[in-house]
C-alpha cells in the first residue's frame, strides 16, 4: 500500500500498524443478539440471506464476551435497563453500541410511558443512532458501514 524503501517482492506491502488493526476490527464486527421488541425482527432480517450482514464480517454472537457491538434493537424498559448496562459492561473493549430505532434513540412513541427508558444513551454510551420505526435492514446495513468508517479512523498505537 505504502512507500517501499527496499526492493521488496511484489507480494509484500508496507502499512501502518493502526491501519492493519483497524482493517481487521472493522471487518469483523461481531454483534450481540439483543432484540428487545419489533426492531429485533428487522435485526434478524439483516442477519438473514437478503441483507446478509455476514458479507461485512458481522456475525451474531449470543454472549457479550465474544461481542464487539451491541445493537440495542427495541424498547428498553426500566426493568431491562439494568440488564442492558450489565451486558454492556461484560463486553470486552473496544466495544460499540448502536441504538436502533426510535425507541432506543429517545423512547419513541412510548416515551410517555411510565416504564420506558427515554433513550438508551441515558444508560450506556451510544456510537450510532439509527432512526426509523423500525429501521429497514438496508438502514441497519448502512449503520454497520458507518460504524466501520468510524473504526477505521481510530488510532491505538499512534495517539
Amino acid at each position, binding site marked *: 500500500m505504502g512507500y517501499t524503501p527496499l526492493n521488496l517482492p511484489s507480494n509484500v506491502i508496507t502499512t501502518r500498524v493502526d491501519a492493519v488493526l483497524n482493517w481487521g476490527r472493522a471487518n469483523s464486527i461481531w454483534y450481540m443478539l439483543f432484540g428487545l421488541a419489533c426492531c429485533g425482527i428487522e435485526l434478524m432480517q439483516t442477519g438473514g440471506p437478503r441483507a446478509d450482514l455476514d458479507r461485512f464480517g458481522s456475525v451474531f454472537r449470543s454472549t457479550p464476551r465474544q461481542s464487539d457491538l451491541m445493537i440495542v434493537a427495541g424498547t428498553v424498559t*426500566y*426493568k431491562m*435497563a*439494568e440488564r442492558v448496562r450489565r451486558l454492556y459492561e461484560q463486553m470486552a473493549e473496544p466495544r460499540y453500541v448502536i441504538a436502533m430505532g426510535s425507541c432506543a434513540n*429517545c*423512547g419513541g412513541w412510548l416515551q410517555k410511558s*411510565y*416504564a420506558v*427508558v*427515554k*433513550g438508551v444513551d*441515558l*444508560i450506556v454510551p451510544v456510537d450510532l443512532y439509527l432512526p426509523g420505526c423500525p429501521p429497514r435492514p438496508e438502514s441497519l446495513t448502512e449503520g454497520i458501514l458507518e460504524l466501520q468508517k468510524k473504526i477505521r479512523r481510530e488510532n491505538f498505537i499512534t495517539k
Partner: protein
Amino acid sequence: MTAEEIYRHGLERIPAGTLGELAAEAVQPWVTVTPASLLDVLTVFRDDPALAFECLDCLTVTDIMDEGQMEVVYHLYSYKHQHLFVVKSRTGRDEPQVPSVTGLWPAADWYEREQYDMFGVRFTGHPNLTRLFLPDEWVGHPMRLDWKEGETALGIPTSRPDPLVKKDAEAGGGADA
C-alpha cells in the same frame, strides 16, 4: 342462565342484604358486594352446582378518584353452563384492601399481583403479594390517577432535552446567520 336468573339464584343462597342491586341494563350485568362479604359470595358462586363459576376470567381494578374509591372487578365464567357474571367490590382509595381470592381460584395469584403492582390494592391473604411487571425497587403505582412521574426512575433520568428547542447560547447566535 341469564344474569337475571343468576342474580335471583344467588339471592336465595346468600344472606339477605349482602348482594347489591343488579345492574341489569349493562352489557355484562354486575352486582356490588362489600369487601367483607366478598369471599362468602364468591364461594357460593363457585361451588353452587347451578352457577358453577369455575373460572375467574378476569380481575381488574378501576380507580375512581372523584369518589375516593377503588373498584375491584371480578369477571366470572362457567364452562359448564356457558354463562358469565360480574361482581364488583369497592374499597377506600387511600388504603385499598380486599381479601384475596387465590384460595378459590389459583389463577387469581398473578392477577392480584398485577393489580397490586399497578394500583397498590392490597389483597389480604395472598401468598406472595409482590410486584409482577415493574422492578421491585419501583416507587408508586403508575395506574393510579394521581401518580406522577418523578425526575428519575431507578436512578435514570425520566426526561431528555428536546432537540427542537434551541439552547440559549445557540439561540443568541442566530439561526439565520
